[in-house]
């Protein structure tokens, strides 16, 4: 049963709150949205461009009927809530009552109307919503119409500029000494006034309005000093007051606004509030950024999650086309403050920073606001700027001298300039391919022109040609580099190791410009694998570049002990092996002996210092490492085929054993799991393995790219072959192709998704020559790497890393 959430007010804060709520838990609440305005949520900030004609109302609607429908929001627009009955938990409108479990008040602000004589004449209006905008537009259609705007703050000036664009003669009256006195200092306000006057908007500061004159409708405005301005409309933009009436009448705690805590709860536990109507820690808000933060917080509170509203530093933007203005922080005068000022009179630029204790506390900019965001972040962070005082006013970019622009260099290249040396592709060919072929990505350019398909060093250049040709339609791919030691991706590094024949880690790091002296825990395992895969004879495996499991050749458990899994070929064992495993379990006090999903036995809880001896014992029985820990071949599961099964079509067990004996010991980009099923009943679950073979009457169906872990995926068909030998060859070739091309830690299914199954088929199925070459290279690698690591490490004398550092069996050691 859903809880009932009633939201009063369809402003910007409530719209955002509902978005957050539905994103997190769309099923918790049944929502009713009530709005006094006869319309839904729209971007009130954009009313000024609608007034001026630079936007339409439709463009600024944020949530339309479709959105309300999709989110099952019941809407009551044009209905003002007149009363809240907190005891019965209902809200009352003229059309009836709506019950709530939770109530969100987002009633916004009411415009403050000066209580002047004549303020109730027709033609006197606030500037708050679309209805006000429409009334202003109606007035603008009158010939030679005149507007007086009372209030030279943000809203008043936006109204003035919009009305002027619509053809009215406009006067702005402002009671303080300069415009936007809360956001600007006098110098910036002077420049702003000049800009407005350039638009023939008359500005009268220190203007105290005495009365609004007219009989039935407004005709003029009278000031205290006797000045009279004729007017067809008077727009009052003198401030807003939080709209708290229904909350106050309901007995909810009120200050200047509806008082809320950090989680946006009011004094009533079932009622929350956000937006311009709230008061939080004594502050009320009239700019949108903090309201959006409040919306995030209230959505969490409604879902019983912890969240707290933290007010942050705000900046101001005046939405008048052609006026470039920025202000943030505190820029009042004071003895403990200092100013840094920059003026460029010819360009109408003024910038002022206010510093206190070597920190920027305020910034005002007019005419050049490019660095506004940077100054704001310095204000928010309280950065100590003492080290950059000399150049601070010039912003973050001051470095002296122009840098060479690589994009300009590429743009300046003639069409004949060679971009890809390996394949002889010039700039003109690439540009033509992009333009004529509608190409938009690097991969498409590579496919069509072959540029960047060999050594890869020209990839950056090709991307720049794309950017120069397409503009911001081409998004420079934000590829993830291999690690912080390098800007190259895994694919780049693999390609370059081959292309430049880099055969050691120092060679890779030196030639490819590694930023660290010896790599890190991320790149070293990857580089180690790439090198041993590409250069099996020349490169020696570096155990220091391996994860603990691969160094210890056992799986570490949560208590620091290890698990030991001997290999059981194709899941088939014999009494001698079972006895050896049982003996080892007893001899080394193994706490748990368990069957694995891979059809073998796991000895769990083995102490590290016992590993070499246990391995020696298992080796003596002919058992080798099951590599249950490695990025290599894990298991080849089988079900019984023609040996015993009534339904067996082929010798699935025999094939599985042959495959395991061929593939074991090889390192690969990630673990490889195989299975061979004797018939389509698939008892070995071959269809969710990296390579899965299902035997049929006519032969063997090979599928690849399955997964049965966090991702669940069925194999895709690679080939159907009549003979066992062919099945083995294709499997081995596939493994080698995967080893030579995949990104380290990409499972086979992820790699296939990147390169495409068709390409894989071409390499290992269709091209017999290539298949044979892959098999040959795999066997070459196996000539080095198919060794039992247990046998290599069975003697602790040779491998002291398995000896404990301290002997806690001796009580004296603990003293």
């Amino acid at each position, binding site marked *: 049963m859903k809880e009932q959430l009633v939201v009063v007010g369809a402003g910007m804060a409530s719209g955002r709150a509902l978005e957050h709520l539905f994103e997190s838990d769309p099923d918790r609440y049944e929502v009713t949205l009530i709005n006094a305005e006869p319309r839904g949520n729209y971007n009130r900030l954009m009313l000024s461009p609608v007034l001026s004609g630079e936007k339409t109302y439709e*463009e600024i609607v944020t949530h339309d009927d479709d959105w309300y429908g999709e989110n099952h929001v019941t809407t009551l627009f044009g209905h003002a809530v007149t009363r809240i009955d907190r005891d019965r938990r209902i809200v009352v409108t003229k059309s009836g009552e709506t019950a709530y479990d939770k109530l969100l008040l987002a009633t916004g602000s009411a415009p403050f109307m000066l209580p002047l004589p004549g303020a109730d004449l027709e033609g006197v209006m606030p500037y708050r919503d679309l209805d006000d905008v429409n009334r202003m537009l109606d007035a*603008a259609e009158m010939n030679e119409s005149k507007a007086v705007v009372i209030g030279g703050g943000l809203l008043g000036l936006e109204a003035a500029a919009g009305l002027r664009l619509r053809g009215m003669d406009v006067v702005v009256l402002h009671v303080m000494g300069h415009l936007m006195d809360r956001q600007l200092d006098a110098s910036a306000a002077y420049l702003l006034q000049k800009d407005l006057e350039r638009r023939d908007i008359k500005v009268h500061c220190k203007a105290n309005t005495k009365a609004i004159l007219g009989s039935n409708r407004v005709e003029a405005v009278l000031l205290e000093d006797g000045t009279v301005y004729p007017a067809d409309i008077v727009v009052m933009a003198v401030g807003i007051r939080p709209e708290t009436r229904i909350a106050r009448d309901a007995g909810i705690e009120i200050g200047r606004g509806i008082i809320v805590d950090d989680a946006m709860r009011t004094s009533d536990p079932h009622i929350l509030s956000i937006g311009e109507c709230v008061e939080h820690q004594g502050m009320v808000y009239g700019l949108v950024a903090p309201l959006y933060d409040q919306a995030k917080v209230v959505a969490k509170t409604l879902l019983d999650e912890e969240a707290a509203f933290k007010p942050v530093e705000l900046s101001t933007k005046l939405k008048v086309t052609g006026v470039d203005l920025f202000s943030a922080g505190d820029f009042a005068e004071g003895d403990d403050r200092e100013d840094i000022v920059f003026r460029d009179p010819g360009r109408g630029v003024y910038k002022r920073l206010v510093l206190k204790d070597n920190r920027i506390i305020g910034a005002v900019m007019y005419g050049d606001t490019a660095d506004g965001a940077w100054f704001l972040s310095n204000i928010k962070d309280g950065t100590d700027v003492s080290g950059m005082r000399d150049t601070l006013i010039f912003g973050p970019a001051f470095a*002296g001298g122009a*840098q060479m*622009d690589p994009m300009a260099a590429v743009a300046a290249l003639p069409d004949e300039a060679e971009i890809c040396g390996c394949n002889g592709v010039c700039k003109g060919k690439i540009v033509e391919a992009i333009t004529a072929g509608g190409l938009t990505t690097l991969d498409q350019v590579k496919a069509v022109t072959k540029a960047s398909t060999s050594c890869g060093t020209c990839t950056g250049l090709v991307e720049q040609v794309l950017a120069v040709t397409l*503009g*911001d339609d081409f998004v420079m791919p934000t590829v993830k580099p291999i690690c912080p030691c390098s800007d190259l991706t895994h694919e780049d590094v693999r390609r370059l190791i081959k292309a430049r024949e880099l055969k050691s880690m120092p060679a890779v790091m030196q030639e490819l410009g590694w930023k660290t002296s010896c790599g890190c825990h991320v790149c070293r395992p990857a580089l180690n694998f790439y090198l041993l895969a590409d250069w099996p004879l020349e490169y020696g495996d570096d155990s220091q570049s391996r994860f603990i499991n691969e160094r210890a050749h056992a799986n570490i458990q949560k208590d620091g002990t290890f698990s030991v899994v001997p290999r059981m070929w194709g899941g088939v064992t014999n009494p001698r092996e079972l006895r050896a495993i049982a003996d080892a379990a007893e001899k080394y006090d193994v706490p748990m002996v368990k069957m694995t999903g891979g059809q073998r036995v796991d000895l769990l809880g083995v102490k590290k210092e016992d590993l070499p001896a246990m391995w020696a014992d298992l080796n003596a029985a002919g058992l080798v490492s099951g590599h249950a820990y490695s990025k290599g071949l894990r298991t080849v599961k089988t079900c019984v085929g023609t040996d015993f099964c009534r339904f067996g079509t082929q010798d699935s067990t025999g094939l599985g054993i042959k495959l395991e004996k061929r593939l074991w010991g090889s390192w690969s980009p990630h673990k490889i799991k195989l299975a061979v099923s004797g018939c389509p009943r698939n008892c070995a679950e071959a269809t969710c393995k990296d390579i899965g073979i299902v035997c049929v009457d006519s032969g063997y169906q090979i599928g690849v790219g399955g997964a049965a872990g966090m991702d669940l995926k069925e194999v895709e068909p690679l080939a159907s072959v009549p003979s066992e030998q062919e099945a083995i060859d294709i499997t081995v070739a596939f493994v080698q192709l995967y080893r030579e091309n995949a990104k380290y830690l990409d499972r086979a299914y992820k790699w296939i998704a990147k390169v495409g199954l068709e390409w894989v088929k071409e390499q290992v199925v269709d091209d017999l020559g290539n298949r044979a070459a892959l098999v040959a290279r795999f066997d070459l690698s196996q000539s080095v790497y198919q060794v039992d690591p247990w046998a290599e490490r069975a003697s602790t004398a040779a491998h002291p890393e398995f000896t404990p550092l301290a002997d806690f069996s001796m009580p004296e050691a603990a003293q």
Partner: protein
Amino acid sequence: MQARILDTVETAQSFIQATEIWVPDAAGTRLVRSDGLYGLHGAFGSDSSGHSFAMGQGLPGRVWAEGRPIILNDVQDGTFVRADSAERAGLTAAAAVPVYAGNLIKGVLVMLCGDPDFGVGAIEVWHSNNAPGSVMELDGGFYGSAKQFCEVSERTAFKRGQGLPGGVWASKTPMLMRDLGRGYGFVRAESAGAAGLTTGLGIPVPAPGGSSYVLTLLSACATPIARRYELWDVVPGRGGQKAIGALVDGLCDIDGPLWGTERRIQPWQGPVGRAMATGVPVAEVPSGTHRYEGMVALPVHAHGEVTHVVAWFF
């Protein structure tokens, strides 16, 4: 392949039928063609390929000599050197707009239109001598078949800050108006609505001398001037930092409003980036899409730097 086919959209014929960019040659003594989009008028394009214009010669040269935008309602009037070729192509009117960085001419944009009885739209040049109390008056305009709107415009003047020409004049900033048929308190709005003109692009045209010029392109749905508009605000680079262009407004018949998209562009990135970097107008077939036959990126300069780029796609 499939994606490209879906990307092509049936379009109404454009009001502007050919677009050219002429730039100073290396010696700076003649204007040569750097870009040309001729649509169905390939022959006219070919005829134009050998031409160049000295200062005062032909329409581009005249714009250069007089330092102001010019509209020729009849290309057979003797100014237009390629008059015969234009007649064969059915091109009857031309508008030429100079792009100045201070006193230095960076290029001339030439737009050519066809039969004056076909199509509704407006290409206008507004002028003020900036004397105290002066207004913006129509210096020239081509309106296609919107004859009544033409007559009204000839009788209309705009005060500073008033209407699209006055707004652009006062703010020195390009503007894109959506509904031309509302407000303004005079007959032009009414007749704009009657003519079906809906979108208005206003662009300041800085020029040497003390006068102000504004180019307005008013578009109707039936024969649009453009199907997509982009207004880019350019923050000049300084201290080693690159300039950045930010998309501040725009409209597209398919994508809808383009403001609020947070798009940024660097110098040299695509045609808009090139206009930003070079300060020279660009006209070309846009890459990466088959939606448009052509686009123009027109830079606007102030204080020796590019401060805006206006792009339209048709």
